[in-house]
């Protein structure tokens, strides 16, 4: 246990020295593994075992069939975006919400939610929406705090509203139905949009100058804007429905595995973009290129995290934890609260995917032994991960925003994000206290015989 904790500390130090996460975790994981195996970090047998674990991990992860959903869902999001969908979604939400005080920030949040329905990554949602929404909010004189924060926070919805890369990985790790996880993410995602809208209202109530009202759109204009987003809805229902088995009837008999759903989604998005004339050979290449880069860097982190998690497991952290909790003799709810506290603390420093990979293998057995629902825990974990994306000092979404916008300091963004962060805590409390919010939809679907 002590060794594992020292390992955690070392990873933190390396990460802060800007050593890429994959190398920080990989290095500590390898030597930690060697130590656990051989009794010393430089023991020859231990090192050999550690290195062959590393070698297998590298070659297996990239060839994992289940993980192929990751590039395919990223591809779907990017193709839809090439079709100009982000802009259209933004136009729709702007037409409906823009005339309120802070309305353009509210429209940003709503459009982020819509974009999440096609994109499984929070970082991609934030990156895409910042290109679309940021110029608009600047044009209306929105404060940097509010405009960047609404995108950073709204972007976090990407991993909750299906499809979601993080939920896929949780599903793979814990053998939980990915279809159920996706459906379970819908209501909490809508709640997230609502709570963020309140956060925007609160910000402009505190400082009216930070978010002036935009122009009011007439009803004809509003309906016209709606006409252009039907394709997103259709694709969303195709992917989620197919995954869940909604088309599993004669003569179609169509049920998608997650990879197939992602492949259909990507192809559908490609065809939509092609049909709209938004794709040249060059932009197709750009999309494929960006997807490969994103997927490869995600896989790299995944490999690093798995190496590290092999070490942590070998060091016996999960069992130690269960024993500890059993010895304390506290109620299951208190245990959940403690786990959440750990997540929020870890979320301060860890990238979302690595946090998930590090913690789920440790906490999942514990939570299951307490009798909680695996789908519910998955959603809870994702919501906590969302919070971590905007938690200083390592809120990745904030850094994405900084990367795209450039001339705003991270401190400014973090300042603006605070009300959104608090809104997230309220949402988390609701989901933890009322599991019904998460479970009602997947249970309904279950009753339909799937």
């Amino acid at each position, binding site marked *: 246990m002590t060794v594992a904790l020292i390992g955690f500390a070392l990873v933190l130090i390396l*990460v*802060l*020295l*800007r*050593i*890429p*996460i*994959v*190398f920080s975790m*990989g*290095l500590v994981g*390898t030597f930690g593994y060697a130590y656990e195996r051989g009794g010393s970090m430089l023991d020859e047998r231990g090192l050999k075992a550690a*290195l*062959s674990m*590393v*070698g*297998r991990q*590298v*070659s297996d992860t*990239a*060839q*994992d*069939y289940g*993980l*192929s959903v990751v*590039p*395919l869902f990223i*591809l779907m999001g990017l193709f839809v975006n090439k079709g100009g969908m982000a802009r259209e979604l933004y136009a729709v939400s702007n037409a409906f919400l823009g005339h309120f005080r802070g309305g353009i920030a509210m429209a940003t949040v709503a459009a982020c939610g819509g974009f999440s329905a096609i994109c499984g990554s929070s970082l991609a949602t934030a990156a895409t929406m910042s290109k679309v929404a940021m110029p608009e909010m600047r044009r209306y004189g929105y404060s940097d705090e509010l405009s960047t924060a609404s995108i950073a926070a709204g972007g976090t919805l990407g991993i909750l509203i299906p499809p979601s890369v993080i939920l896929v990985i949780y599903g793979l790790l814990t053998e939980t139905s990915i279809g159920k996880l996706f459906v379970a993410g819908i209501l909490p995602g809508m709640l997230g949009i609502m709570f963020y809208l309140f956060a925007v209202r609160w910000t402009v109530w505190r400082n009216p100058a930070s978010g002036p009202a935009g122009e009011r759109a007439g009803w004809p204009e509003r309906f016209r804007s709606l006409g252009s987003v039907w394709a997103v809805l259709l694709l969303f229902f195709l992917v989620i429905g197919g995954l869940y088995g909604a088309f599993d009837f004669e003569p*179609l*008999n*169509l049920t*998608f595995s997650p*990879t*197939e759903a*992602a*492949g*259909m989604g*990507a*192809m559908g998005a*490609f065809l939509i973009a092609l049909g709209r004339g938004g794709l040249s050979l060059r932009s*197709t*290449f750009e999309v*494929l*290129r960006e*997807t*490969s*880069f994103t*997927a*490869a*860097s*995600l*896989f*790299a*982190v995944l490999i690093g995290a798995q190496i590290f998690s092999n070490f942590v497991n070998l060091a016996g952290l999960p069992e130690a934890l269960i024993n500890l909790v059993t010895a304390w003799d506290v109620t299951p709810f208190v245990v959940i609260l403690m786990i959440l506290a750990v997540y929020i603390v870890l979320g301060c*420093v860890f*990238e979302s995917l690595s946090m998930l990979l590090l913690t789920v293998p440790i906490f999942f057995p514990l939570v299951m032994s307490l009798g909680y629902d695996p789908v519910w825990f998955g959603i809870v974990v994702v919501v906590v991960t969302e919070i971590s994306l905007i938690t200083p*000092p*390592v809120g*990745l979404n904030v*850094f994405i925003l900084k990367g795209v916008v450039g001339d705003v300091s991270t401190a400014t963004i973090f300042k603006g994000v605070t009300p959104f962060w608090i809104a997230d805590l309220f949402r988390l409390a609701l989901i933890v206290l009322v599991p019904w919010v998460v479970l009602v939809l997947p249970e309904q679907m279950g009753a339909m015989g799937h």
Partner: protein
Amino acid sequence: MQSVISAIRWLSPLPVLLACLALFILMTMTFFDVILRSIFNSPIEAATELTRILMAIVVFSVLPQISAQAGHIAVDLMDSFFFRWRLHNIRDGLGYILCGVLMYWPAMRIWILAERWRDYGDVTEYLAIPQFYIGWFIAFSVAISGIVMIGTGLLILFAPRLLERS
């Protein structure tokens, strides 16, 4: 030196092109697999193993470029501190060299794995593609990544001008 760097820049789109092609094939194949299975009841049987191979191609084709261009996910929290003390070049240079050197071991291990696959004659289930080709490819990619990282690190430390795009 300048010419080596421009040669590398000139060559770098090739593996990316390979990754793009693999990804596009992956998407199209998955799509047609579903269509063929549901409508004509004849799925592409090799789809699973092809998916695995295509994934490895996508990831490891672009790995060297990600490694050389600071594409790995990292944390830039302490950046302002390093910039203030003008230590960022030293930190980046040493970081690159460290990571590059670290790549040696996984590359070697995967090479050994691949050789073992070759000895055992491991092939994929439907198409009988020899496994060791994939192993070689991964080992090669990891090794190249290590080399370009060491190179980038050395350039950052000793000749940062050469890295600027002319």
